[in-house]
């Protein structure tokens, strides 16, 4: 361990000489560029350049990965994705899976974000009241946040399987067992449930911090005036907590739109297309299908990016106000 530490120290001393040289040549703060450069270079290669390449892919067709060998097709990829005889009926669309993905994602976002907001707010309020063992309970609610989505999915798959403990409990209670992940609506319900289970601790923590930032004097003043609890919450706590609620809402929205990992492992997008979401469409089209249609995947990515951009701008505006 000591040898490792000294090796590390020696490594970190290596840049000393070239940096001194650069320091002699660059005046003022321009040495700052040297410090920023490595990080910026990685950003350039893996974030900014890809956006440009995304555009190129979206405007070209074929299945070739090499950009130079892809024929230009203009807006064909976008047109193909958006080609529906009835936009409210996914089965009437040329790329029906894309539209199943959109509608499922929309449905998922409404339920997941809505319910998660309610439960994390409720949990934060309970954790903020006078309770025994607050640290313990806070840790318990937060713990699943740290788990790998694959682990989360497998934990629940084990519980929800046909001969799992949930069905055993149902039989014990005299209720007919259900094949949870093989019924479209149940699979969707569990996708929402599991993703709330895995993430609500994070949002609870933000809301709890928001609650604790409200000065105690305000609550005391309200208590002096004998404000009824519900009115107290509605007129005092909630308005003061609004900035945190907005952060949680938009962060939750941004993440929910990109739902993939845990649901993909839990249900594989099925049964049928019941839990296929938009990111799974991108992954499937670009990487998992026999014929890899990079152009379609890139076009779908850009459409998703547009949605995320709008959401982020709303968040930034909200944060500025908060």
């Amino acid at each position, binding site marked *: 361990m000591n040898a490792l530490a000294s090796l590390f120290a020696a490594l970190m001393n290596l840049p000393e000489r070239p940096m001194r040289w650069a320091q002699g040549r660059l005046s003022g*703060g321009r*040495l700052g*560029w040297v410090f920023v450069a490595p*990080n910026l270079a990685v950003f350039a290669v893996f974030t900014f350049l890809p956006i440009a390449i995304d555009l190129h892919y979206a405007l070209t067709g074929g299945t070739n990965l090499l950009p130079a060998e892809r024929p230009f097709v203009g807006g064909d990829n976008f047109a193909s994705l958006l080609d529906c005889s009835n936009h409210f009926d996914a089965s009437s669309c040329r790329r029906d899976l894309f539209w199943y993905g959109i509608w499922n994602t929309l449905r998922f976002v409404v339920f997941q974000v809505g319910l998660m907001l309610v439960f994390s707010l409720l949990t934060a309020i309970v954790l903020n009241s006078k309770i025994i063992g607050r640290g313990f309970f806070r840790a318990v609610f937060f713990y699943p946040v*740290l788990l790998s989505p694959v682990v989360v999915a497998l934990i629940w798959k084990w519980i929800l399987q046909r001969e799992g*403990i949930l069905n055993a409990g149902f039989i014990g209670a005299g209720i007919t067992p259900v094949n949870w992940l093989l019924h479209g609506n149940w699979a969707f319900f569990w996708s929402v449930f599991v993703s709330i289970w895995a993430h609500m601790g994070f949002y609870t923590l933000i809301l709890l911090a928001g609650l604790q930032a409200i000065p105690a004097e305000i609550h005391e003043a309200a208590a002096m005036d004998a404000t009824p609890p519900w009115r107290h919450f509605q007129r005092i706590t909630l308005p003061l907590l609004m900035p945190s609620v907005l952060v949680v809402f938009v962060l939750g929205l941004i993440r929910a739109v990109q739902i993939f990992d845990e649901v993909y492992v839990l249900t594989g997008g099925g049964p049928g297309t019941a839990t296929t979401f938009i990111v799974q469409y991108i992954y499937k089209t670009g990487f998992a299908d026999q014929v890899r249609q990079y152009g379609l995947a890139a076009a779908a*990515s850009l459409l998703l*990016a547009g949605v995320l*951009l709008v959401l982020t701008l709303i968040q930034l505006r909200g944060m500025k106000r908060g």
Partner: protein
Amino acid sequence: MGRFLAATRGFGRWDWTDWAAHAYLVLGVLVMLGPVLWLGLSSLKSESGLLVFPPTLLPYEQASVAVEGRGNLKLFHVTAGEYAGHDLAEVRRLGLQSQLVDPAAPATLIRLPLDSRVPVTRLRAAWENYSGLFEQFDFLRYLWNSVFITAVATILTLLLNSMAAFALSKYRFAGREPVFLLMLATLMIPPTIVLVPNYLIAATLGLTNSPWGVIWPAVATPTGVFLLRQYMLTLPDELIEAARMDNASEWRIYWRIVLPLSAPALAVLAIFSVMWRWNEFLWPMVVLSRSESFTLPLALNAFQGELTTQWNFLLAMTMVTLIPVTVIFLALQRHITQGIASAGVK
């Protein structure tokens, strides 16, 4: 006594909201922790123990006994008839009948109806589920891949992000603000958006099926730069000026003064980075297609997708993936929750 309880807000003074709050929390513990505990208990059951339905809470296993000339036989307790109260070993089943022998006198075959015997079970943790991971699977390789990616990516993240944060907080140069805004803007470009082009870039650079293909795209995090910059802004500039007076090089100032002083923020970022890399799924799945380059989550996913899922190994593998994160959490719980509450990032 009554006065004492009342003074310290004992149970006697609980109103219904206190009861409701604690009931909610206890239910919450059951829902949040129960599934993980169930996974842990199940991972200690033997392959046959897992097939028992309804499942038992603890890892029970049917006892077996070595019978001379017949090998290992399963043990049953006879509940009715002439042999009631005896423990007999089952040789085979014939329709609704069972052929059993007394382990002490294996020569005489005893026929009994199936419903007059119950399995003899005993509590035993099937640790072979865990040791089997190392014997039957390339588990060490997956573990190593995950550890390598997590460790190297975290070190590089800390280095690159802190260098950038140092420049953005302690230097004045033309373009500082645009660079900072540019880095913040990358928050709006999540990896899901750039899957296809990043795959091309990784392929061009020869990074597919290599741990570096997972490491490089991940090391320049906007979150990290932002977190460290905010922290470094609070460090007094006088320290740096004093070091310059002593003719320390700028690199030395960064490496020997600013970096050690930023330890709390670096620790928060290190925890984040470890969690991100250890748990990452979609991008590794795209860039690592050969099984020998798989990380633990990828191996888990591939393994669970196989038709004949061996749940005993899968559960053990899931537990092993979960344990490091759990240990880190138990050790650093306070830092993690405070770090997240203050940074508002994940």
